[in-house]
């Protein structure tokens, strides 16, 4: 295929994003910036809600387990199992057992998002220097005070790494939310019969773009919460 011919479908996709056009069989208008922004907002809302809840559940549990030094097998296995569960199966499971709708999909996404955050919260706390923790405990701080004021800040970079991984996974999975009746950017991809080839490619481009933006934003957050000394150490070691 020549390069110009390749530009064709992608150029048409860009046009789809900017200008509304007739649906494939006509009758309704699809595409255009307004609709794109509406779907993007739905996508972000769904993903954001899921990530917030995942953090609210996974961070405290991971911190607690890490502080106690217990449940290493659980914390690590959760990540392995979480990685093994296909997102499509998870969404389908919820649709088959509970039905369609925003709440069900959010719960499924929360389950998807918990493992990396939990594991990283655990690992992040475990790698905090024991002497610092002992000193804090020696000063009379309660368990939660120690966790909150000592372990959490030092573990934050690793935790954010987990949140970053989860966020990208959740945004990617929110693409198939239309299967459960929640219309996100994925509708452009899954309902190509309405939006046409241009719509489908536009959907793919938009989802890819959103994922990259989320990844880069969280990478920036992660760097921001990493103390400078740790940053230097990380730059020369593993990323």
């Amino acid at each position, binding site marked *: 295929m020549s390069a110009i011919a390749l530009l064709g479908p992608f150029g048409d996709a860009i046009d789809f994003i900017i200008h509304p056009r007739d*649906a*494939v*069989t*006509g*009758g*309704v208008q*699809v595409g255009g910036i307004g609709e794109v922004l509406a779907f993007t907002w739905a996508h972000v809302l769904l993903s954001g809600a899921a990530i917030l809840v995942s953090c609210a559940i996974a961070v405290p549990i991971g911190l607690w387990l890490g502080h106690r030094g217990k449940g290493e097998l659980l914390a690590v296995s959760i990540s392995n199992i979480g990685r093994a569960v296909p997102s499509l199966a998870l969404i389908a499971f919820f*649709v088959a057992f*509970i*039905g*369609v*709708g925003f709440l069900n999909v959010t719960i499924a996404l929360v389950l998807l998002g918990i493992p990396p955050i939990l594991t990283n919260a655990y690992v992040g706390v475990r790698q905090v220097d024991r002497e610092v923790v002992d000193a804090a405990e020696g000063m009379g701080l309660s368990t939660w005070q120690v966790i909150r004021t000592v372990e959490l800040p030092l573990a934050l970079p690793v935790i954010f790494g987990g949140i970053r991984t989860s966020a990208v996974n959740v945004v990617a999975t929110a693409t198939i939310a*239309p*299967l*459960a*009746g929640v*219309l996100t950017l994925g*509708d452009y991809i*899954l*309902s*190509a*019969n*309405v939006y*046409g*080839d241009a719509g489908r490619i536009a959907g793919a481009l938009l989802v890819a773009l959103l994922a990259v933006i989320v990844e880069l934003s969280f990478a920036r957050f992660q760097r921001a919460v990493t103390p400078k000394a740790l940053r230097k150490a990380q730059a020369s070691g593993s990323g």
Partner: protein
Amino acid sequence: MIRSRSTKAAVAAFAVSLSVLAAGCGGTGATSTEASAPPSGQVIQSNADNAKVTLTIGSKNFTEEFILGEIYAQALEAAGYDVKTDLNLGSEQIALKSLEDGEISGYPEYTSTALTSFFDVDAADIPSDPNQAVDQASKDFADKGLVAFPPTDFTSANAVGMLKSKADELGVTKVSDLEGKSQDLTLYGSPECRQRVDCLLGLEDGYGLKFAKFVPVDIGLRYEVLDKGQADLSILFTTDAQLSQSDDYVTLEDDKAVFPPGNITFVASQDAVDEAGPDFEKTVELVQGGLTEEVMQELNARVDIDREKPADVAAEYLKEAGYTQ
């Protein structure tokens, strides 16, 4: 998934030829005396010339289409062709595109869908005689280099469905009864419903109905959303197994004829027809002869209720109806 069936076809064809030879000429069962209808229950004969031809049979993305695609594919296999399947293409627009692009050789389409979705014909203008409908569609298909084979006997149409309890509660029996009530009701339909005149557009324009919400969901969920109480109304198909097997659902009468019934016509590319020879159309026409509305509902029930694989159900049909042995 494009699956090659050559090994299975070879074995099946061999078995069929053996049993035809063993049974003597003419096959089992009575032959029809009416020249217009192809004899039903006649065993498909394998033709060695067909082995050089590869056909890829496609289908759309719901149960009835899977079954039909498998029936045609397995029948053509029995006739000696090298058959691949690429089922679950998507809805009609995607299937048509696959056909035009040459990715598939043919797929089963509804005359009503073809006319309203491909050729912009108003639902009211669709001929009630299936052969006339196919003729009308044939001309437009020919412009695309496609051929429409003779239609099946059974028809299927979209229908507005709801739980019987809900229909009794609202006191509705016809779609026009929804006037004045629909703005408080949610309607669930397939993704392509929102752009089709024999679906949401027809309800909005033809009946003048406004709904509280229209939610597009996968076709496979059309009963689930009623069961879970999430949908007040759902777009169903008249040949659905759930309608015939259960008393829980009712469909509202289409009093303004917005949902035209359609017969199945197998649409193939001219190139495939030329390459495949006369057995292509002959086999398709033969094997769909046994598809009455009752039979189609039964086959749908075997997949949706008994949870059998569409391929197995198609094989059972071909055997029970006497087309294969």
